[in-house]
């Protein structure tokens, strides 16, 4: 399935930007992606926009040009950007369009997300008694995982320290200061075993990609990157997921495992072929669990891999080379397209100080969020 190419990527930095609107950031990201592709907005035939906070991401057309194209808005939790990407790719795969844009944008208040639990399928009292917190779920999930697979608190700190280090050399990142493992371990405990500096924060930002029919890509670029697979999966019975007041005794694998397997199968690529990896690191524990759920190691191997530095930019499994969510924060609508932006730079050899050595050929991105939704994308050059 190499019938869709990525010919342009653009990003508005992630962080805090005062009164600047998410729509303005989205328009900047699209302009960046168009310039990268060497095309004009009027050549774009359709678009998908993703956001949690913005009701109508399609309002960016008011800043880009009112060309009348179909522009569809999506929200799918933390997998919003993967959804916008998949739908845009499908529009091209179906033969309906030749060239389209996927854009994600958001502007969140500081602090943990909140909402009405009923909208997540949880009981109405779930928030009232203090259970409606994504951070609590991540604490429970990694705590059991550490118990079962011998992962140490030090390894959690290694993941976070690595992502902050990568953020230092990413000019678009939110957190650009290195933090020592000691400072991470010593920061305030929020949800045992996860401390303050082991979590990402909601913030602001936007990212966009221009996709086109693979057979047309060489009109626009000498270095197309092909989108080999996009998959989305929700939870199956037996998975213990975010915002659940109960779980089955009989356990099923997490939605990421299913999305990952389907993506490898569609791409005809295995985890051993992947050169650069982007994983949902809502917290340091999530990155550890997702390494195994996406097939990059066996459960428990992360202890040794992190100690060896295998997930560093120069390691054999580079993970979150741009600092991931921990250094970039999570503007939900944009987060997954930020992952794709980084993978495209890496595959083109344009990642500068962050460049993975050895001319990487295969990139992999995974998103995960409430209420148990995962998205995986595989890119090759």
């Amino acid at each position: 399935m190499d019938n869709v190419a990525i010919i342009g990527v653009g990003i508005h930095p992630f962080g805090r930007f005062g009164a600047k609107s998410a729509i303005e950031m989205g328009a900047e990201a699209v302009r960046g992606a168009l310039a990268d592709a060497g095309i004009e907005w009027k050549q774009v035939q359709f678009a998908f926009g993703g956001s949690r906070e913005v009701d109508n991401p399609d309002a960016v057309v008011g800043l880009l040009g009112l060309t009348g194209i179909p522009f569809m808005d999506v929200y799918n939790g933390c997998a919003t950007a993967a959804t916008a990407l998949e739908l845009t790719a499908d529009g091209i795969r179906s033969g309906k369009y030749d060239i389209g844009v996927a854009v994600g944008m958001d502007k969140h208040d500081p602090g943990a997300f909140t909402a009405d639990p009923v909208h997540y399928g949880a009981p109405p009292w779930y928030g009232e008694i203090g259970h409606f917190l994504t951070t609590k779920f991540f604490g429970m999930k990694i705590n059991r995982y550490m118990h079962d697979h011998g992962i140490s608190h030090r390894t959690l700190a290694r993941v976070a320290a690595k992502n902050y280090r990568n953020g230092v050399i990413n000019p678009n990142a939110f957190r650009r200061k290195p933090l020592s493992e000691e400072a991470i371990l010593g920061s305030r405990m929020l949800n045992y075993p996860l401390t303050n500096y082991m979590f990402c924060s909601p913030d602001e930002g936007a990212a966009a990609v221009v996709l086109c029919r693979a057979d047309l890509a060489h009109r626009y670029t000498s270095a197309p990157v092909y989108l080999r697979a996009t998959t989305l999966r929700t939870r199956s019975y037996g998975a213990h997921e975010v915002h659940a007041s109960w779980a089955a005794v009989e356990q099923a694998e997490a939605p990421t495992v299913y999305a990952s397997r389907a993506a490898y199968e569609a791409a005809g690529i295995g985890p051993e072929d992947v050169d650069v990896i982007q994983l949902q690191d809502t917290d340091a524990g999530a990155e550890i669990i997702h390494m195994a759920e996406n097939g990059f190691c066996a459960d428990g191997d992360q202890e040794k891999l992190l100690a060896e530095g295998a997930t560093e930019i120069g390691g054999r499994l580079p993970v979150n080379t741009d600092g991931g969510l921990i250094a970039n924060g999570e503007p939900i609508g944009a987060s997954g397209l930020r992952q794709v932006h980084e993978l495209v730079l890496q595959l083109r050899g344009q990642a500068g100080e962050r460049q993975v050595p050895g001319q990487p050929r295969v990139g992999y991105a995974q998103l995960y969020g409430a209420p148990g939704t995962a998205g995986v994308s595989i890119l090759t050059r």
Partner: protein
Amino acid sequence: MSQIPFAPDVFTWPSERPQLIGGRCGRCGTTTFPMQSSCPRCGDLGMEQVLLPRTGTLWTWTTQEFLPKEPYASGETQETFRPFAIGLVQLGDEVRVEGRLTVSDPAEISFGMELELVVFPFRAEEDGTEVMSYAFRPLS
């Protein structure tokens, strides 16, 4: 002083030996907590209320060390908030349920520990009425 549960049909109250109220699918036997209108496994509409076992074992847990935003309604403030622990507790071989633990120090919590259901005053209304919630207490 009067005591009321925070919501109806979550646990039996008043009761010397309170139990959580779940749902069971008449077709495939799947147990949920709380009761829901249809089965999450097979979609059947024939769910019936069932009282869940009072005791169980701790599957996993974490702590909640910052004051949750609204809709958290304990009446606590940043100044008065007391961190708590929360567990996923396996009741028999039927279901695992989330619930607060009566202990909050990680040193007092262990995987597999045996727990029993208790009901405790979660907050007080202005007229002194106590709003009751459920939690799990170590058995030993």
